């Protein structure tokens, strides 16, 4: 009865690629851009990426005394964001600090997302002893005050490379994600479709990849954005306090300079401090909005509700 197979032609490589592109890249991107949060978030992040890649070649490096000191922002278009006490253009400083920030965020967020996902899924899916060992490890790292550990590590080893800084900052982030992922996996593994795959005798790797991880994507993407935001916050704080080496141009270093060198009661100098702060806020806003937009992309229930409300609630 089941021996008969229909003769569907195998898709050619080209068709496969096209179909894959449509399903994996085009459709999610369309949903993302249609949601205003996803759109604004992507635009902000794209702007920062452009600033960090193209911008550093277009905008020359900041030099000392290239302009008058304490030019307020948005007045002189040679210095769009104004200047500090040394007459350096704040705009140029901001642009040239971006690549290091982006490298740090990428390294740290990737580390925490990969570690968190792998440990969370394996622990939740395998259960038993593997679970207890992995969760013990997670709980231990979770309980140790991560920021203190990071600060101690950063002081002892004085990392200069932004990737290394990112990795150190990522240490604190993965246990949270591992915990959430594990509890999600616990409910997914009881679902009917996982049960079905198991009865069909599909391999663990297959079940983990197709059934479990694909259902976790909303959490993973949202957490990528969240860890990115935490890494921005923490790194800027550590640079601001002077705990990380000040050799590199960074928004935290800029804040530190402004905080120590500007007259904080003088409104004409305070912009020096506010510019890097505004950038941190803008960048993390981008990540948060993107996370919420991605939530729409991956969360089928939300998407269905979204579409239903858009079409006037007639398709019920």
């Amino acid at each position, binding site marked *: 009865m089941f021996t008969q197979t229909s003769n569907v032609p195998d898709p050619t490589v080209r068709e496969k690629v096209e179909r894959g592109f449509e399903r994996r890249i085009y459709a999610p991107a369309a949903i993302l851009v249609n949601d205003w949060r996803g759109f604004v978030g992507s635009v902000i992040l794209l702007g920062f990426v452009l600033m960090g890649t193209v911008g550093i070649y277009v905008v020359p490096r900041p030099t000392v005394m290239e302009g008058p000191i304490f030019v307020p922002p948005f007045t002189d278009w040679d210095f769009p964001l104004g200047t500090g006490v040394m007459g350096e253009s704040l705009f140029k400083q901001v642009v040239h600090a971006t690549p290091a920030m982006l490298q740090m965020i990428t390294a740290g967020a990737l580390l925490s997302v990969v570690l968190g996902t792998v440990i969370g899924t394996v622990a939740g*899916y*395998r*259960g*038993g002893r593997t*679970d207890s060992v992995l969760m*013990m490890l997670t*709980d*231990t790292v*979770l*309980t*140790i*005050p*991560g*920021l*203190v*550990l990071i*600060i*101690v*590590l950063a*002081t*002892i*080893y004085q990392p200069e490379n932004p990737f290394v800084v990112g990795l150190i900052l990522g240490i604190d982030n993965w246990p*949270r994600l591992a*915990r959430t992922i594990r509890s999600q996996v*616990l409910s997914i*593994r009881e679902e009917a479709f996982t049960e079905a795959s*198991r009865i069909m005798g599909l391999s663990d790797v297959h079940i983990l990849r197709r059934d479990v991880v694909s259902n976790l994507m909303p959490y993973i993407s949202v957490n990528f954005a969240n860890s990115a*935001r935490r890494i921005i*916050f923490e790194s*800027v*704080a550590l640079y*601001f*306090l*002077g*705990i990380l080496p000040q050799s590199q141009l960074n928004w935290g270093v800029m*804040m530190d300079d402004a*905080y120590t060198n500007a007259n*904080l*009661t003088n409104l004409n100098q*305070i912009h020096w*401090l506010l510019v890097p*702060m505004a950038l*941190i*806020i803008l960048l*993390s*806003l981008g990540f*948060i909005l993107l996370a919420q937009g991605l939530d729409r992309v991956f969360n089928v229930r939300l998407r269905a509700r979204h579409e239903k409300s858009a079409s006037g609630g007639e398709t019920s």
Partner: protein
Amino acid sequence: MYYAKRIGQSVLVFFTALTVTFALYRMLPFGPVEMVKVQLMKQLLEQGQSPSAQQMRTINAMVKTYTGIDPSVPWYVSYYEYLRNIVLYQDFGRSIFKNKPVFDILYRAMPWSVFISIYGLALGTTVSLLFGAVMAYNEGSKFDTVMTFISIGNSTVPYYVVAILTLIIFSYNLGWFPSGGRMNPSTTPGLNLPFIVGIVKHAALPVFSAFVASFGGALAFRGNCIREMGEGYIRVARLRGISQGRIAIRYVGRNALLPVYTSIMMGIASVFGSSIILETIFNYPAMGLVTFNALMNRDYPLIMGSFIFFTIVTLLGILIADLTYGVIDPRVKGGNERETY
């Protein structure tokens, strides 16, 4: 059984933290001990001398005075001594820079850190849970929209930016609050009004910033409340004529609290951790500022000691939260009956 397991786990975490600090301090290449040693050796070689056994001993002695660790002793012996001193005698070594026992320095500073952190955390958690619940009950109202915006704004702005800005506005410009210290120096410590007012004034801005740092569960709690409110048993409860207030607190609130509980617990860890940043900004002499100064002076015994202290405080906080959590969630006492694949 659950409690025993939980306490046992905390003890385990404590020893892991001790081991991590020891390893950081002692074992890793480019760790402080190694660094000092290499530096001294280099000086000697630059003077054109090759280190003899005699000179190695002087180097080791110098390393010992700089770091409080004798490099000639094998690591397992010093590991054992390190654990023994801390567990049995509460001896964390001596601060190199202040030349006082690390334990005394930290023990004096700790209550102040706990003071501002606990207030900030308690305020932040209570307010965000309250707001979350009110937002859920008035879903779609103006209050809901405004608060959602504020919550998102709160998660975009780092707490230390809030700290710096409040410091600039209320302390440097308006002069309402002091910009550093933890008590008014012209008052006599004790139970008198000027002294207490001084303490409150000094703590106000740090507590506010800690509050901002721990305010953030509102949106998550709102979502959980909304989800619970759609469940069938709530409708059944309504049909049974149970009062609105009871449904709101006992049915919705309690069940919606469970998922955000983990994030509250993790809030404890991060609030104590962030006190280094806050206390440095506010120049508030407590554990965080002591740690920061130790970091700047490379006072390793003090750094390691304060790391262990922070871990202990966090562990205790989480343990207390966890043990009292059984009151809210009866399931925590035994939920390990899952089948394994």
